[in-house]
């Protein structure tokens, strides 16, 4: 077996080292300028923009929830207001009804009172009329009766006598 080349092989060769150093430095400089910088920058920018977008989304979410809460509050308030307005309207209606009823009652009372007063008046007037007529009738009747009763003298005497008897002296 011939292993002489192995000997050559683990002995570093200065020419290769020099070439390697030169080539590596050139590659390093070129890649640093034209590859790593743009690539690393692109990665960084993308990460930043993603982080930005995420934080914006988070903010938007927060804003949304705030708006939602706001909306709910507004709706709640509106509902409350509506309830209040409805209640007021009801109250108003009730009070109006009450008032109307009261007024109607009062009116009816007044009308009743007036009516009864009128009736009273008419009654009084009719009574007065009746009295007047009754007086007339009574005078007429009395006239007729008297004319009949006092037609003979005996009856006149009897009557006088009765009247005289009736008169009591006390």
């Amino acid at each position, binding site marked *: 077996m*011939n292993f002489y080349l192995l000997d050559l092989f683990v002995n570093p060769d*200065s020419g290769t*080292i020099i*070439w*390697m150093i030169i080539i590596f430095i050139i590659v390093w400089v*070129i890649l640093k300028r034209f590859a*790593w910088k743009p*690539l690393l920058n692109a990665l960084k920018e993308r990460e930043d923009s993603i982080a930005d977008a995420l934080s914006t989304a988070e903010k938007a979410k927060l804003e949304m929830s705030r708006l939602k809460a706001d909306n709910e509050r507004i709706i709640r308030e509106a509902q409350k207001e509506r309830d209040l307005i409805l209640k007021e309207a009801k109250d108003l209606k009730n009070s109006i009804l009450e008032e109307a009823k009261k007024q109607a009652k009062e009116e009816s009372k007044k009308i009743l009172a007036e009516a009864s007063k009128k009736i009273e008046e008419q009654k009084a007037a009719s009574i007065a009329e009746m009295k007047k007529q009754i007086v007339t009738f009574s005078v007429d009747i009395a006239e007729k009766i008297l004319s009949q009763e006092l037609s003979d003298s005996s009856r006149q005497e009897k009557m006088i006598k009765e009247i005289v008897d009736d008169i009591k002296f006390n």
Partner: protein
Amino acid sequence: MNRITTILVIGILLTTTPLFTYASSDDNSTASGFNAGEFVMHHISDSYDWHIMSIGEKHISIPLPIIVYSKTKGLNCFLSSRFDHGHSSFNGFKIEENGTNKGKIVEVIGNTMNTDNTAELPWDLSITKTVAGIMVSVVLMLMIFISAGKAAQRNKGKAPTGIQNFVEPVILFLRDDVAKPAIGEDKYQRYMPYLLTIFFFILINNLLGLIPIFPFGANVTGNISVTLALALFTFIVTTVSGNKHYWKEIINPDVPTLLKIPIPLMPLIEFIGMLIKPVVLMIRLFANMMAGHMIISIFVALIFIFANLFGPTVAYSVAPFSILFGVFMTLLDVLVSFIQAYVFVFLSAIYIGMATSEHH
């Protein structure tokens, strides 16, 4: 545990290598037949030309540029095809065929193939197979990531498109699960370009090394020179970014005075620890990738070994199993490629994090 095993394996490898080398010099019995060791080593080691295939005795390979500098002959640039696969010399240089410098470029005396063994080795800056492999992977890397970067700029504020989709999750993973926890939220950004570059460099080279078709398949990350350079970068980045606290922990750690004053035991240990960290990085990646390539090559070599020993019939019956195991090992190496790239970058991040942390 993994680290200890790796170090052990490499230790054994390093200590026994001279034995093999020695043994090889007087072993000529395999010269006529198939040499499995040579075959495997050839597939995982560096070379001056990019071998594609051999048909019979004819080798088809892509010649690569040789750049050597010597004090006597100055700077020389030519294609490796001039060496005629190591059989001839050119411009006073040749690839040494034996001895301690075997496989390296040496100077020859005059126009002959003779060399002066005591002479200094020339400076070798050749574009070897490994360097060419690095260049191929780097071109691919630049294409992928620059287009991803452009896409990122184009799609500002929009969804990612195309290649950007594949790259971004990995970058995100490295940023959020490696750099941030290891270095810390406030300092990781400075080190991201470095960590991304080494991660993708290692990963792409690991994966391309598994593709056995030209222009891929060079054993880049299984080459100790490459991993040494990578570990060196991590060491430099760590040391440069080390803060007051880090240096204080090395020079004057919080331990009983007796451990520091007569003999600076703890500072010494801390200092060695500082140096061992990148060494461990270097050896782990190298050993893992080299082993993967080696095992796949060995499974292929097994067919030829059997052919040599028992004839072609046995070799044909062994071949399906060899291929099956080879496929299995390749798939395993895909996994190892990701794991090793991750481990390298993760440990680098941890070392940087240790150097920059304010308190424990």
